[in-house]
């Protein structure tokens, strides 16, 4: 099956710093999502991004499908950004389509 690799596995920042998280995938995908799991365990959809760039406030994401990677940028990080960031790719056709997740990047933002 498809492999999804995220880097770095862990990241510690001071509040106000910028960061880039990377997601590589081993095969062509239909689509890609980024999620944030907060310290309380809630999984929050950040971006649905098959290609190109999207921005939402301090967060932005870029997917280059032809080169099989996606990047998540966090600018001016805040303590509330802490948690685990997951990349997940959609594979399969129609009713069989499903998400395959990477192992995540654990982000800690210190005040």
């Amino acid at each position: 099956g498809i492999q999804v690799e995220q880097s770095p596995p862990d990241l510690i920042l001071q509040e106000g710093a910028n960061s880039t998280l990377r997601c590589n995938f081993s095969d062509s995908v239909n689509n890609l999502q980024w999620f944030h799991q907060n310290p309380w365990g809630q999984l929050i959809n950040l971006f649905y991004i098959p290609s190109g760039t999207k921005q939402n406030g301090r967060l932005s994401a870029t997917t280059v499908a032809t080169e099989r990677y996606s990047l998540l940028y966090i600018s001016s990080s805040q303590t509330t950004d802490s948690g685990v960031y997951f990349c997940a790719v959609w594979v399969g056709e129609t009713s069989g389509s499903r998400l395959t997740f990477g192992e995540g990047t654990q982000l800690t933002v210190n005040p």
Partner: protein
Amino acid sequence: DAGITQSPRHKVTETGTPVTLRCHQTENHRYMYWYRQDPGHGLRLIHYSYGVKDTDKGEVSDGYSVSRSKTEDFLLTLESATSSQTSVYFCAIRSSGTDTQYFGPGTRLTVL
């Protein structure tokens, strides 16, 4: 949150007992999913449904069964719980309009 609720939110049970987890959605989405999340393994798909009475296996389906008798409810059953099934279980839907997946709040299950 796409109108997804899970019940119970926490459960402690004993090895060998049956357990049913419920996922309920209010927005008439066709696709529903069950995942488990364990340290070191991330999120893994157990079963999914693409319509009423239409279900299929995911990558870690052994020991689990599902049922979907109506659009809004997707049930996950552990016929005879084992300690290896101690985990956090997440339900998710796939939004019909955008193909985006949204997750429920999760159920923490402990099998003693």
